[in-house]
């Protein structure tokens, strides 16, 4: 039984790559290619329910269930298996285009800020510019005591200031 059908390759920008398209019957039992006009055919297909798949890089095609009638030779019924939509004509159209690569996001300040190093820098800046402010708001008495403490330790450092600031 013959089963001729047209593939609606036109209008999908597929024509340039039409030579890469394969049409596959029953999971590899038969493989055929598209003609320049987008038609394809399988020969000697017995009556029964068959499955047609399309292999095309860059496009997602739903497999098609094809019922070849035993009573009326040449009569064919087709339906997409993905969404159970019946086809009036056996015209195969891709359901969607497939994009195999991630799209790089353009450079933005936020992405740098959000990166671990950006966060580190941010924290640094906060410590550098906000801590002195905190120190300034401290009680002068307290401040002096802290400084004395520091002098006794001999090493002036920000880290020794931090706990005392926190204690306040």
């Amino acid at each position, binding site marked *: 039984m013959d089963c001729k059908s047209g593939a609606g390759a036109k209008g999908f920008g597929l024509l340039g790559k*039409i*030579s890469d398209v*394969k049409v*596959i*019957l*029953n*999971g*590899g*039992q*038969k*493989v*055929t*290619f*598209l*003609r*320049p006009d987008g038609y394809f*055919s399988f*020969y*000697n*297909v*017995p009556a*029964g*329910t*068959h*499955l047609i*798949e399309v*292999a*095309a*890089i*860059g496009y*997602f095609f*739903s*497999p098609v*269930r094809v019922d070849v009638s035993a009573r009326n030779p040449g009569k064919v019924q087709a339906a997409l*298996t*993905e969404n159970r939509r019946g086809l009036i004509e056996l015209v195969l159209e891709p359901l969607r285009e*497939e*994009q*195999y*690569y*991630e*799209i*790089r996001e*353009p*450079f933005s300040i936020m992405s740098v800020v959000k*990166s671990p*190093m950006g966060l*580190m*820098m941010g924290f*640094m800046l906060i410590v*550098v510019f906000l801590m002195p402010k905190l120190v300034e708001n401290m009680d002068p008495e307290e401040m002096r005591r802290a*400084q004395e403490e520091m002098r006794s330790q001999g090493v*002036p450092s*920000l880290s020794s200031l931090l706990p005392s600031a926190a204690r306040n």
Partner: protein
Amino acid sequence: MAARILAVFLLLFLSAAPLGSSLYEDQVGLMDWHQKYIGKVKHAVFHTQRSGRKRVVVSTEENVIASLDLRHGDIFWRRVLGANDVVDAIDVALGKFVITLSSDGSTIRAWNLPDGLMVWETFIRGSKSSKSLLLSGTNSKVDKDNTILAFGEGCLVAVSSADGEVLWKKDFADASFEVQQIIQSPGRDVVYVLGFVGSSSFDAYQINGKNGEVMHHDTASFAGGFSGNTLLVSDDVLVALDAAMSHLITISFQGGGLSINEKPISNLVGDFAGPVEILALKLGRMFALKANKLITFISISNDGKLDVLEKINSAAAISDALSVSDGRHAVGLVQQVDNKVEFTVKLGNDWNTNLLKETINMDHQRGFVRKVFINNYIRTDRSHGFRALVVMEDHSLLLVQQGEIVWGREDGLASILDVTTSELPVEKDGVSVSKVEQNLFEWLKGHILKLKGTLMLASPEDMVVIQGMRLKSSEKSKMTRDHNGFRKLLIVLTRGGKLFALHTGDGRIIWSRLLESLRKSEACEHPTGLRIYTWQVPHHHAMDENPSVLVVGRCQQNLDAPGILSFVDAYTGSEIKSVGPVHSVLQVIPLPFTDSTEQRLHLLIDAKQRVHLYPRSREALSIFQQERSNIYWYSVEADKSIIRGYAIKRTCVHEDAGDYCFEPRDLWSVVFPGKSEKIVSTVTQKLNEVVHTQAKVMAEQELMYKYISKNLLFVATASPKASHEIGSAIPDESFLVVYLIDTITGRILQRMTHQGCQAPVHAVFSENWVVYHYFNLRAHRYEMSVIEIYDQSRADNKDVLKLVVGKHNLTSPTSSYSRPEVVAKSQSYFFTHSVKAITVTLTAKGITSKQLLIGTISDQVLALDKRYLDPRRSLNPSQAEKEEGVIPLTDSLPIIPQSYVTHALKVEGLRGIVTVPAKLESTTLVFSYGVDIFFTRLAPSRTYDSLTEDFSYALLLITIVALIAAIFVTWVWSERKELQEKWR
């Protein structure tokens, strides 16, 4: 313990990560490589007439039609036909179409020569199978009507080469008429169809080339009977062999009537033994006879006398005749002389003069010359030059011109049988410092460029430089072991009997070796490779020792044919030792024991289920004797629907190598009802798989123990109707039953039936789960199901108090003989595509979550997270389940284009996918093969344990510098402030 806690944290962290890994377009080629092949060339047609691109069109044993660049051997285009669509003949018509005859002569297709687009397709429907022959107009030089004559399925068809329209058809329906030859007479538009009727009668039909009417029919009989092929020597003489293969028969059929003569072969070649073959030269009144290891060239004079012209060694290949100017014909001969190859071109009508004689140095790893195709060109001094396309024993394709090999293609890699890996040698010397300093400027420049790239400031030229730098990175193609275990050797065994070692970094061939033991010999007529195993991995202290691999082959196709074993050094490719032909090899079981030289013990099971131990040493035997009682194996007899289990009984009684041979003891058998169930698929776990956690923490703090046993076998059976192809069964009469069988006891742990489903079944078994793919006839869609099995006997170990007090049975040994209390959870989902291969990612410690790698019908490899195939998926997962990462239930599995690991590439003719763990836990190496080969590196849960490729070291440096600068600035500030304080 700390590592375990870390792992748990990592897992928690990972489960929040997005599913699947994906690639940016500019990362293509960083971790992956792809190589295109075509396979062993069967036919070749040159197309060099016009100026411009010179090409050769070839068809191969992998059913590929390809157009190759004659200058460099690159592929202009190629089409891979279906697996059953074997190409019988190719030709070029009208100078712009490639005509192919395929599927036993039932399909004629025309392909556009420049771009490979299919132009037309014509189907011949005949009544019987027959030889298929193609005769295109170009040979007969009657180009006016451009008809192609094709013979297939017992029909002679004339097809217009412009649009594929059938002009006329003549059916030779007579069942006993076997057509051997078709000839188109050059002048008169007459087609001769010649063939045998029965074994002793010869028939010749003359057919009108315009309309297909039979003009004349002759019959002659020959008492001796015919055997095999016939050869056309000229337009009116045919040569055949008689049934006894002792006489040459010449049949002249033109000029009214048939006349048959015979002549004993021994008169021509002297005494001979063994098979005789006649070789066509398609050369004026000449043919070649292959007998007695010699090729004899014989000419036939006009009155039918046979003369011997020359005898040459049979390790030679002869091309078809090529018409050189003014009716002269040339024939190419390629002979093997030691390590060199002699290419001679002779003139047909003047055998003693050589048009050309060249000697070419040939790598002896390519073996003998198998086929040669010649083509001529006019040199600048108007003399004739010749080029030859040579197909070698290892399936490689070479172009020879002017005494040199212009290019070569390693097309043996299109037919890979099995793959294993080997570690590279450890780096001995450190990198010298001077080298680093010398490259410091370059290094800095590179990083500045990369920084520009990340900041999107780079110009397009800079981007090209960056991309080039990334691809060329010498780091990945070094010949030493790396810290992460990304660099390895892939050792592949090909159908041509050649071993290749490929570098995982860039896919280049490190060494290749045609295995002597897998070559045709007296003892072994048709050797084929079967599998390849890691044989010896020397301890890492033994730096001077090289690892080795074991190659297992078989002398004939049938299962009980004698086996061949070969041990090959993995670093140099030299054959250390070969054994064979020995006992037959049905199964090879690598044991988890090694001897003192780190050679792994292997058990080879022969056709009588006897066990042979390798290596054959006393030490190996003593190791084996200790473990002997723990050795179990099974056999699957698919044709009888029986699975049997065995253990070792005693050493063999009637065997030469008695000590190393053991006889089996039948333990159990599972007999499936053969009339209703046929075994369609069996799968076990990978031996090298590592399972990290025994338990699975469910939502609501519940604990489930995985039932982990290396001795589980997944078996799928189908009703007889459902075991054929799709389209032949109806849902009511087809069902699929899957079993999980313990191979020690033969106990069936789980049995499930899928009504209305059918084969093919592709399955993968890992840890405590099986995923299998089959066809659901009711929904008419493919389905994938998962079965997870959990151990109930340990289920009451959840109580923390019990664990603390020690009242748990976790440390008690698990035995297959203890009655397992298992629960199985299962769920099914729809899957869109047909599947060619399925496997699962393996990692070094088994911590990283798993991905299924699915080779789809469109020759792509899809990575699907195992979490999509979790039987606990439900429509509305609870909050706890959501936190754990259970995905809400959908009826079909999602196909996310970004998760194709082959991205925009195809692995044409995909047959297998192999995963190898890298040393880095997050990463696994994936190698997929078919006609093409493709390698990539995958991180199923992203690279959580290392920095990614695009990590910007420059940014890190800048940050550090900025921090140091900030420290100094603040220090100066604080000094100054302190000074001011003091002055106050």
